[in-house]
Protein backbone atom coordinates (compact mmCIF):
# COMPACT_ATOMS: atom_id res chain seq x y z
CA UNK A 1 0.00 0.00 0.00
CA UNK A 2 1.30 3.40 -0.89
CA UNK A 3 2.65 5.27 2.01
CA UNK A 4 1.91 8.92 1.62
CA UNK A 5 2.78 11.47 4.18
CA UNK A 6 2.64 15.21 4.18
CA UNK A 7 6.06 16.39 5.13
CA UNK A 8 7.10 19.96 5.70
CA UNK A 9 10.03 21.48 3.89
CA UNK A 10 11.95 21.62 7.14
CA UNK A 11 11.55 17.91 7.84
CA UNK A 12 12.90 16.99 4.41
CA UNK A 13 16.01 18.99 5.09
CA UNK A 14 18.95 17.67 3.16
CA UNK A 15 16.78 15.54 0.86
CA UNK A 16 15.43 18.68 -0.73
CA UNK A 17 18.78 20.32 -0.93
CA UNK A 18 20.21 17.41 -2.85
CA UNK A 19 17.37 17.72 -5.30
CA UNK A 20 15.71 14.43 -4.37
CA UNK A 21 12.25 15.92 -4.49
CA UNK A 22 10.61 13.00 -6.23
CA UNK A 23 10.36 10.64 -3.29
CA UNK A 24 8.64 7.55 -4.50
CA UNK A 25 7.55 9.12 -7.78
CA UNK A 26 4.76 11.36 -6.59
CA UNK A 27 3.50 9.10 -3.83
CA UNK A 28 4.51 11.67 -1.26
CA UNK A 29 3.46 15.30 -1.34
CA UNK A 30 5.89 17.92 -0.22
CA UNK A 31 4.13 20.78 1.50
CA UNK A 32 6.38 23.80 1.51
CA UNK A 33 5.81 26.29 4.26
CA UNK A 34 5.57 29.71 2.69
CA UNK A 35 7.73 32.34 4.31
CA UNK A 36 6.84 35.98 3.94
CA UNK A 37 9.18 38.83 3.20
CA UNK A 38 9.14 42.58 3.44
CA UNK A 39 7.46 44.22 0.43
CA UNK A 40 9.27 47.21 -1.06
CA UNK A 41 7.83 50.69 -1.02
CA UNK A 42 7.13 52.24 -4.41
CA UNK A 43 8.56 55.56 -3.24
CA UNK A 44 11.60 56.78 -1.27
CA UNK A 45 11.45 57.03 2.49
CA UNK A 46 11.68 60.81 2.29
CA UNK A 47 9.08 61.17 -0.47
CA UNK A 48 6.17 61.70 1.91
CA UNK A 49 7.68 64.68 3.70
CA UNK A 50 6.64 66.94 5.31
CA UNK A 51 3.50 64.95 6.14
CA UNK A 52 5.47 61.93 7.37
CA UNK A 53 9.21 62.20 7.97
CA UNK A 54 11.73 59.98 6.22
CA UNK A 55 13.06 58.82 9.59
CA UNK A 56 9.65 57.50 10.60
CA UNK A 57 9.08 55.80 7.24
CA UNK A 58 12.44 54.06 7.41
CA UNK A 59 12.03 52.72 10.95
CA UNK A 60 8.38 51.91 10.40
CA UNK A 61 9.18 49.87 7.30
CA UNK A 62 12.57 48.32 8.11
CA UNK A 63 12.08 47.69 11.82
CA UNK A 64 8.41 47.47 12.77
CA UNK A 65 6.98 45.84 9.64
CA UNK A 66 10.00 43.56 9.35
CA UNK A 67 9.56 42.46 12.97
CA UNK A 68 5.93 41.52 12.34
CA UNK A 69 7.00 39.47 9.33
CA UNK A 70 9.84 37.75 11.18
CA UNK A 71 7.61 36.84 14.10
CA UNK A 72 4.78 35.79 11.78
CA UNK A 73 7.11 33.38 9.97
CA UNK A 74 8.31 32.03 13.30
CA UNK A 75 4.76 31.53 14.54
CA UNK A 76 3.77 29.77 11.30
CA UNK A 77 6.70 27.39 11.67
CA UNK A 78 5.70 26.58 15.21
CA UNK A 79 2.08 26.16 14.07
CA UNK A 80 3.14 23.76 11.36
CA UNK A 81 5.05 21.66 13.89
CA UNK A 82 2.16 21.71 16.33
CA UNK A 83 -0.33 20.65 13.64
CA UNK A 84 1.83 17.75 12.60
CA UNK A 85 2.29 16.62 16.16
CA UNK A 86 -1.43 17.01 16.77
CA UNK A 87 -0.72 19.32 19.71
CA UNK A 88 -4.08 21.09 19.88
CA UNK A 89 -3.33 23.25 22.88
CA UNK A 90 -0.18 24.54 21.21
CA UNK A 91 -2.15 25.24 18.02
CA UNK A 92 -4.72 27.25 19.95
CA UNK A 93 -2.03 28.93 22.03
CA UNK A 94 -0.33 30.26 18.90
CA UNK A 95 -3.46 31.99 17.60
CA UNK A 96 -2.85 35.31 19.34
CA UNK A 97 0.72 35.55 18.03
CA UNK A 98 -0.53 34.74 14.52
CA UNK A 99 -3.33 37.29 14.72
CA UNK A 100 -0.97 39.95 16.03
CA UNK A 101 1.99 39.41 13.73
CA UNK A 102 0.02 38.25 10.69
CA UNK A 103 -2.34 41.16 11.19
CA UNK A 104 0.63 43.51 11.47
CA UNK A 105 1.93 42.20 8.15
CA UNK A 106 -1.44 42.53 6.39
CA UNK A 107 -2.13 45.98 7.77
CA UNK A 108 1.24 47.47 6.99
CA UNK A 109 1.29 45.98 3.49
CA UNK A 110 -1.98 47.79 2.83
CA UNK A 111 -0.71 50.96 4.51
CA UNK A 112 2.32 51.38 2.23
CA UNK A 113 0.03 51.18 -0.80
CA UNK A 114 -2.36 53.68 0.81
CA UNK A 115 0.34 56.34 0.74
CA UNK A 116 1.79 58.23 -2.21
CA UNK A 117 3.97 61.31 -2.62
CA UNK A 118 2.03 64.48 -3.46
CA UNK A 119 3.70 64.69 -6.87
CA UNK A 120 2.40 61.21 -7.66
CA UNK A 121 -1.23 61.83 -6.82
CA UNK A 122 -1.04 61.69 -3.04
CA UNK A 123 -3.83 63.71 -1.49
CA UNK A 124 -5.97 64.00 -4.62
CA UNK A 125 -9.59 63.24 -3.66
CA UNK A 126 -11.19 60.22 -5.31
CA UNK A 127 -13.28 60.61 -8.44
CA UNK A 128 -15.59 58.08 -10.00
CA UNK A 129 -17.45 55.38 -8.17
CA UNK A 130 -15.67 55.72 -4.82
CA UNK A 131 -16.16 59.50 -4.84
CA UNK A 132 -19.91 59.09 -5.36
CA UNK A 133 -20.13 56.37 -2.71
CA UNK A 134 -18.40 58.67 -0.22
CA UNK A 135 -20.81 61.49 -1.02
CA UNK A 136 -23.75 59.14 -0.69
CA UNK A 137 -22.69 57.58 2.60
CA UNK A 138 -20.98 60.53 4.32
CA UNK A 139 -22.46 63.60 2.68
CA UNK A 140 -19.16 64.92 1.40
CA UNK A 141 -15.48 64.09 1.11
CA UNK A 142 -14.67 66.67 3.80
CA UNK A 143 -17.15 65.03 6.16
CA UNK A 144 -15.45 61.68 5.68
CA UNK A 145 -12.00 63.13 6.33
CA UNK A 146 -13.21 64.90 9.44
CA UNK A 147 -14.98 61.83 10.82
CA UNK A 148 -12.09 59.49 10.09
CA UNK A 149 -9.61 61.87 11.72
CA UNK A 150 -11.71 62.24 14.85
CA UNK A 151 -12.24 58.48 15.17
CA UNK A 152 -8.51 57.96 14.73
CA UNK A 153 -7.74 60.55 17.38
CA UNK A 154 -10.24 59.07 19.82
CA UNK A 155 -8.88 55.54 19.54
CA UNK A 156 -7.42 54.61 22.93
CA UNK A 157 -4.10 52.84 22.91
CA UNK A 158 -2.88 51.32 19.64
CA UNK A 159 -4.87 50.46 16.55
CA UNK A 160 -5.98 51.38 13.05
CA UNK A 161 -8.76 53.45 11.55
CA UNK A 162 -10.23 52.15 8.28
CA UNK A 163 -12.37 53.25 5.39
CA UNK A 164 -14.15 49.99 4.67
CA UNK A 165 -16.38 48.75 1.89
CA UNK A 166 -19.24 46.66 3.18
CA UNK A 167 -19.58 44.15 0.34
CA UNK A 168 -23.05 43.02 1.40
CA UNK A 169 -24.64 46.41 1.93
CA UNK A 170 -22.55 48.02 -0.85
CA UNK A 171 -21.78 50.95 1.41
CA UNK A 172 -18.59 52.53 2.67
CA UNK A 173 -18.07 53.15 6.33
CA UNK A 174 -15.46 53.88 8.97
CA UNK A 175 -14.22 51.15 11.30
CA UNK A 176 -11.51 50.99 13.92
CA UNK A 177 -9.56 47.95 15.01
CA UNK A 178 -7.39 47.52 18.09
CA UNK A 179 -3.70 46.62 18.08
CA UNK A 180 -2.95 44.77 14.81
CA UNK A 181 -6.37 43.24 14.30
CA UNK A 182 -7.02 43.25 10.55
CA UNK A 183 -10.29 44.69 9.26
CA UNK A 184 -11.79 41.23 8.68
CA UNK A 185 -12.00 40.79 12.46
CA UNK A 186 -14.81 43.35 12.33
CA UNK A 187 -16.65 41.40 9.62
CA UNK A 188 -15.73 39.00 6.85
CA UNK A 189 -17.72 41.09 4.40
CA UNK A 190 -15.56 44.18 4.98
CA UNK A 191 -12.91 45.14 2.44
CA UNK A 192 -10.22 47.64 3.46
CA UNK A 193 -10.04 50.59 1.08
CA UNK A 194 -7.89 52.80 3.26
CA UNK A 195 -6.14 52.19 6.56
CA UNK A 196 -4.38 54.70 8.79
CA UNK A 197 -1.95 53.45 11.42
CA UNK A 198 -2.52 55.27 14.71
CA UNK A 199 0.04 53.33 16.73
CA UNK A 200 2.38 55.85 18.30
CA UNK A 201 5.32 54.51 16.30
CA UNK A 202 3.59 55.79 13.16
CA UNK A 203 3.93 59.44 14.18
CA UNK A 204 5.69 59.92 17.49
CA UNK A 205 9.14 61.03 16.34
CA UNK A 206 7.57 63.86 14.35
CA UNK A 207 4.30 64.76 16.04
CA UNK A 208 5.00 63.55 19.62
CA UNK A 209 1.70 63.31 21.49
CA UNK A 210 -0.26 65.42 19.00
CA UNK A 211 -1.96 62.62 17.11
CA UNK A 212 -4.60 65.01 15.68
CA UNK A 213 -1.87 66.92 13.77
CA UNK A 214 -0.60 63.66 12.23
CA UNK A 215 -4.15 62.83 11.19
CA UNK A 216 -4.63 66.29 9.74
CA UNK A 217 -1.48 66.08 7.62
CA UNK A 218 -1.62 62.49 6.46
CA UNK A 219 -4.47 63.28 4.08
CA UNK A 220 -1.96 65.13 1.91
CA UNK A 221 -0.27 61.84 1.06
CA UNK A 222 -3.20 59.45 0.92
CA UNK A 223 -3.27 57.43 -2.29
CA UNK A 224 -6.94 57.64 -3.28
CA UNK A 225 -6.22 56.01 -6.64
CA UNK A 226 -5.40 52.75 -4.86
CA UNK A 227 -8.53 53.01 -2.72
CA UNK A 228 -10.63 53.65 -5.83
CA UNK A 229 -9.14 50.66 -7.59
CA UNK A 230 -9.86 48.46 -4.59
CA UNK A 231 -13.44 49.79 -4.53
CA UNK A 232 -14.00 49.22 -8.25
CA UNK A 233 -12.54 45.74 -7.98
CA UNK A 234 -15.02 44.68 -5.30
CA UNK A 235 -18.13 46.67 -6.06
CA UNK A 236 -18.27 45.62 -9.68
Amino acid at each position, binding site marked *: MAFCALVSKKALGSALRSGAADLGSGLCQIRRLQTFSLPDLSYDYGALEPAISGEIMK*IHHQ*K*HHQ*AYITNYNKALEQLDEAIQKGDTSKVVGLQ*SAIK*FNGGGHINHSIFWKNLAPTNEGGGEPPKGALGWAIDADFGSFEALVQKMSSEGAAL*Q*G*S*GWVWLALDKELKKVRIETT*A*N*QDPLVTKGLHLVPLLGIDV*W*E*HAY*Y*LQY*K*NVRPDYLKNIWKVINWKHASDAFDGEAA
Partner: protein
Amino acid sequence: MLHLFIVTLLYFFGYQKQKDQLRGSRRTSRIVAFYGLTAPPYELDALEPYMSQKTLEIHWGKHHRAYVDNLNKQLANSPLYGLTLDELVKVAYNNGNPLPEFNNAAQVWNHNFFWESMQPDGGYMPAAGLLQQIEKDFGSFPNFREKFITTAMSLFGSGWVWLVLKKEEKKLAVVGASNAVNPLVWGDIPIITLDMWEHSYYLDYRNDRGKYVNAFMDSLVSWQSATARMARAEAFVNLGEPKIPVA
Protein backbone atom coordinates in the same frame (compact mmCIF):
# COMPACT_ATOMS: atom_id res chain seq x y z
CA MET B 1 -0.13 60.31 49.59
CA LEU B 2 0.91 63.70 48.28
CA HIS B 3 -1.89 63.94 45.77
CA LEU B 4 -4.41 63.01 48.48
CA PHE B 5 -3.11 65.94 50.48
CA ILE B 6 -3.34 68.26 47.48
CA VAL B 7 -6.90 67.14 46.78
CA THR B 8 -7.87 67.78 50.40
CA LEU B 9 -6.17 71.16 50.32
CA LEU B 10 -7.92 72.16 47.12
CA TYR B 11 -11.23 70.89 48.51
CA PHE B 12 -10.71 73.14 51.53
CA PHE B 13 -9.78 76.15 49.39
CA GLY B 14 -12.69 75.49 47.09
CA TYR B 15 -15.02 75.37 50.06
CA GLN B 16 -13.62 78.63 51.46
CA LYS B 17 -14.06 80.29 48.09
CA GLN B 18 -17.64 79.07 47.92
CA LYS B 19 -18.34 80.41 51.43
CA ASP B 20 -16.99 83.82 50.42
CA GLN B 21 -19.12 83.85 47.31
CA LEU B 22 -22.20 82.90 49.29
CA ARG B 23 -21.89 86.04 51.35
CA GLY B 24 -22.31 88.10 48.22
CA SER B 25 -25.00 86.06 46.50
CA ARG B 26 -27.91 83.89 47.39
CA ARG B 27 -27.01 81.15 44.93
CA THR B 28 -26.02 77.81 46.46
CA SER B 29 -22.66 76.82 44.98
CA ARG B 30 -21.45 73.31 44.39
CA ILE B 31 -18.15 72.39 45.95
CA VAL B 32 -15.85 71.04 43.26
CA ALA B 33 -12.75 69.01 44.00
CA PHE B 34 -10.37 68.23 41.19
CA TYR B 35 -7.10 66.44 40.59
CA GLY B 36 -3.71 68.01 40.18
CA LEU B 37 -0.68 66.95 38.18
CA THR B 38 1.84 65.37 40.54
CA ALA B 39 5.47 65.86 39.54
CA PRO B 40 8.07 63.11 39.46
CA PRO B 41 10.05 63.10 42.73
CA TYR B 42 13.25 64.06 40.87
CA GLU B 43 14.41 66.57 38.26
CA LEU B 44 13.41 65.82 34.68
CA ASP B 45 17.03 65.18 33.69
CA ALA B 46 17.78 62.96 36.69
CA LEU B 47 17.09 59.70 34.86
CA GLU B 48 19.55 60.34 32.02
CA PRO B 49 20.85 58.54 30.05
CA TYR B 50 18.26 55.75 30.53
CA MET B 51 15.28 58.03 30.18
CA SER B 52 16.05 61.38 28.62
CA GLN B 53 14.93 64.77 29.86
CA LYS B 54 13.19 65.24 26.50
CA THR B 55 11.13 62.10 27.10
CA LEU B 56 10.15 63.20 30.60
CA GLU B 57 9.26 66.69 29.41
CA ILE B 58 6.84 65.24 26.89
CA HIS B 59 5.70 62.14 28.78
CA TRP B 60 5.01 64.06 31.97
CA GLY B 61 4.46 67.57 30.60
CA LYS B 62 2.20 66.59 27.71
CA HIS B 63 0.77 63.07 28.04
CA HIS B 64 0.32 62.93 31.83
CA ARG B 65 -0.83 66.53 31.97
CA ALA B 66 -3.38 65.90 29.20
CA TYR B 67 -4.86 62.94 31.08
CA VAL B 68 -5.26 65.13 34.19
CA ASP B 69 -6.80 68.04 32.27
CA ASN B 70 -9.16 65.81 30.33
CA LEU B 71 -10.20 63.96 33.47
CA ASN B 72 -11.02 67.23 35.24
CA LYS B 73 -12.99 68.37 32.21
CA GLN B 74 -14.98 65.13 32.22
CA LEU B 75 -15.65 65.34 35.95
CA ALA B 76 -17.10 68.83 35.68
CA ASN B 77 -20.30 67.26 34.42
CA SER B 78 -20.09 63.80 35.86
CA PRO B 79 -21.63 62.21 38.96
CA LEU B 80 -18.21 60.72 39.71
CA TYR B 81 -16.56 63.84 41.10
CA GLY B 82 -15.35 63.97 44.68
CA LEU B 83 -13.81 60.49 44.88
CA THR B 84 -10.19 59.77 45.67
CA LEU B 85 -8.26 58.76 42.60
CA ASP B 86 -8.03 55.12 43.77
CA GLU B 87 -11.79 54.96 44.28
CA LEU B 88 -12.45 56.65 40.94
CA VAL B 89 -10.35 54.10 39.07
CA LYS B 90 -12.23 51.20 40.65
CA VAL B 91 -15.68 52.73 40.20
CA ALA B 92 -15.05 53.82 36.62
CA TYR B 93 -13.75 50.36 35.67
CA ASN B 94 -17.28 49.19 36.32
CA ASN B 95 -16.35 45.49 36.47
CA GLY B 96 -14.96 45.32 32.95
CA ASN B 97 -17.43 47.63 31.27
CA PRO B 98 -15.48 50.85 31.73
CA LEU B 99 -17.17 54.21 31.95
CA PRO B 100 -15.83 57.10 29.84
CA GLU B 101 -13.88 58.46 32.81
CA PHE B 102 -11.90 55.24 33.28
CA ASN B 103 -9.24 55.76 30.67
CA ASN B 104 -8.23 59.20 31.92
CA ALA B 105 -8.51 58.31 35.62
CA ALA B 106 -6.50 55.12 35.30
CA GLN B 107 -3.84 56.76 33.16
CA VAL B 108 -3.44 59.56 35.71
CA TRP B 109 -3.07 56.97 38.46
CA ASN B 110 -0.69 54.84 36.39
CA HIS B 111 1.62 57.72 35.53
CA ASN B 112 1.70 58.99 39.13
CA PHE B 113 2.74 55.48 40.13
CA PHE B 114 5.24 55.15 37.28
CA TRP B 115 7.28 58.22 38.29
CA GLU B 116 7.46 56.82 41.81
CA SER B 117 8.51 53.41 40.51
CA MET B 118 11.73 54.94 39.24
CA GLN B 119 14.60 56.85 40.80
CA PRO B 120 18.00 58.21 39.76
CA ASP B 121 20.66 55.50 40.32
CA GLY B 122 17.92 52.91 40.47
CA GLY B 123 18.03 49.25 39.58
CA TYR B 124 20.23 46.61 41.16
CA MET B 125 18.23 44.56 43.70
CA PRO B 126 15.83 44.94 46.59
CA ALA B 127 16.95 44.03 50.07
CA ALA B 128 15.70 42.28 53.18
CA GLY B 129 11.96 41.52 53.41
CA LEU B 130 11.06 42.37 49.83
CA LEU B 131 13.90 40.29 48.45
CA GLN B 132 12.87 37.39 50.66
CA GLN B 133 9.29 37.63 49.41
CA ILE B 134 10.45 37.74 45.79
CA GLU B 135 12.63 34.71 46.31
CA LYS B 136 9.74 32.94 47.96
CA ASP B 137 7.22 33.69 45.21
CA PHE B 138 9.47 33.50 42.14
CA GLY B 139 12.23 31.14 43.22
CA SER B 140 14.99 33.67 42.80
CA PHE B 141 15.50 37.32 41.89
CA PRO B 142 16.83 36.44 38.38
CA ASN B 143 13.65 34.38 37.83
CA PHE B 144 11.52 37.36 38.77
CA ARG B 145 13.58 39.65 36.54
CA GLU B 146 13.16 37.32 33.58
CA LYS B 147 9.43 36.96 34.19
CA PHE B 148 9.02 40.73 34.34
CA ILE B 149 10.96 41.26 31.13
CA THR B 150 9.21 38.46 29.25
CA THR B 151 5.78 39.72 30.29
CA ALA B 152 6.70 43.25 29.19
CA MET B 153 7.98 42.04 25.83
CA SER B 154 4.94 39.89 25.10
CA LEU B 155 2.37 42.63 25.57
CA PHE B 156 0.49 43.22 22.32
CA GLY B 157 -0.05 46.91 21.68
CA SER B 158 -0.15 49.49 24.46
CA GLY B 159 -0.15 48.48 28.09
CA TRP B 160 1.63 48.33 31.44
CA VAL B 161 3.52 45.58 33.24
CA TRP B 162 3.17 45.34 37.01
CA LEU B 163 4.69 43.66 40.03
CA VAL B 164 1.69 43.20 42.31
CA LEU B 165 0.86 41.68 45.65
CA LYS B 166 -2.20 39.54 45.06
CA LYS B 167 -4.66 39.86 47.92
CA GLU B 168 -6.37 36.49 47.50
CA GLU B 169 -3.33 34.35 46.77
CA LYS B 170 -1.18 36.33 49.21
CA LYS B 171 1.73 36.24 46.76
CA LEU B 172 3.73 38.54 44.57
CA ALA B 173 3.07 38.17 40.86
CA VAL B 174 3.92 39.83 37.55
CA VAL B 175 0.92 40.85 35.46
CA GLY B 176 0.63 42.59 32.12
CA ALA B 177 -2.45 44.59 31.23
CA SER B 178 -3.62 46.43 28.12
CA ASN B 179 -4.11 50.14 27.58
CA ALA B 180 -4.97 51.72 30.93
CA VAL B 181 -6.04 48.76 33.03
CA ASN B 182 -4.29 48.55 36.38
CA PRO B 183 -4.38 45.88 39.12
CA LEU B 184 -6.46 48.02 41.48
CA VAL B 185 -9.48 46.94 39.49
CA TRP B 186 -8.85 43.33 40.48
CA GLY B 187 -8.31 44.24 44.11
CA ASP B 188 -4.56 43.63 43.97
CA ILE B 189 -1.87 45.93 45.31
CA PRO B 190 0.65 47.36 42.82
CA ILE B 191 4.29 47.42 43.90
CA ILE B 192 6.06 48.67 40.75
CA THR B 193 5.00 49.42 37.19
CA LEU B 194 6.59 49.95 33.79
CA ASP B 195 4.88 51.90 31.01
CA MET B 196 5.00 49.89 27.78
CA TRP B 197 3.12 52.41 25.66
CA GLU B 198 5.36 53.41 22.77
CA HIS B 199 5.41 57.05 23.89
CA SER B 200 7.32 55.98 26.97
CA TYR B 201 10.40 54.75 25.10
CA TYR B 202 10.19 55.71 21.46
CA LEU B 203 12.25 58.91 21.60
CA ASP B 204 15.09 57.17 23.49
CA TYR B 205 14.99 53.62 22.15
CA ARG B 206 12.91 53.73 18.94
CA ASN B 207 11.52 50.22 18.46
CA ASP B 208 14.10 48.52 20.72
CA ARG B 209 11.74 47.57 23.54
CA GLY B 210 14.13 44.98 24.93
CA LYS B 211 16.81 47.60 25.59
CA TYR B 212 14.25 49.85 27.29
CA VAL B 213 12.92 47.12 29.59
CA ASN B 214 16.42 46.04 30.55
CA ALA B 215 17.43 49.64 31.24
CA PHE B 216 14.44 49.96 33.55
CA MET B 217 15.35 46.81 35.43
CA ASP B 218 19.06 47.57 35.61
CA SER B 219 19.14 51.31 36.20
CA LEU B 220 15.76 52.91 36.85
CA VAL B 221 13.49 50.82 39.04
CA SER B 222 13.20 52.18 42.56
CA TRP B 223 13.39 49.30 45.01
CA GLN B 224 13.23 51.84 47.83
CA SER B 225 9.78 52.93 46.79
CA ALA B 226 8.79 49.30 46.18
CA THR B 227 9.85 48.40 49.72
CA ALA B 228 7.74 51.21 51.14
CA ARG B 229 4.75 50.03 49.13
CA MET B 230 5.30 46.48 50.26
CA ALA B 231 5.34 47.59 53.88
CA ARG B 232 2.06 49.42 53.37
CA ALA B 233 0.60 46.46 51.49
CA GLU B 234 1.32 44.13 54.38
CA ALA B 235 -1.18 46.12 56.44
CA PHE B 236 -3.85 44.71 54.12
CA VAL B 237 -2.50 41.28 53.31
CA ASN B 238 -1.33 38.86 55.95
CA LEU B 239 1.85 37.30 54.63
CA GLY B 240 2.41 35.22 57.73
CA GLU B 241 4.74 35.55 60.65
CA PRO B 242 7.79 37.73 60.01
CA LYS B 243 11.14 35.97 60.08
CA ILE B 244 12.78 37.60 63.03
CA PRO B 245 16.48 36.78 63.06
CA VAL B 246 17.59 35.07 66.23
CA ALA B 247 20.51 36.75 67.91
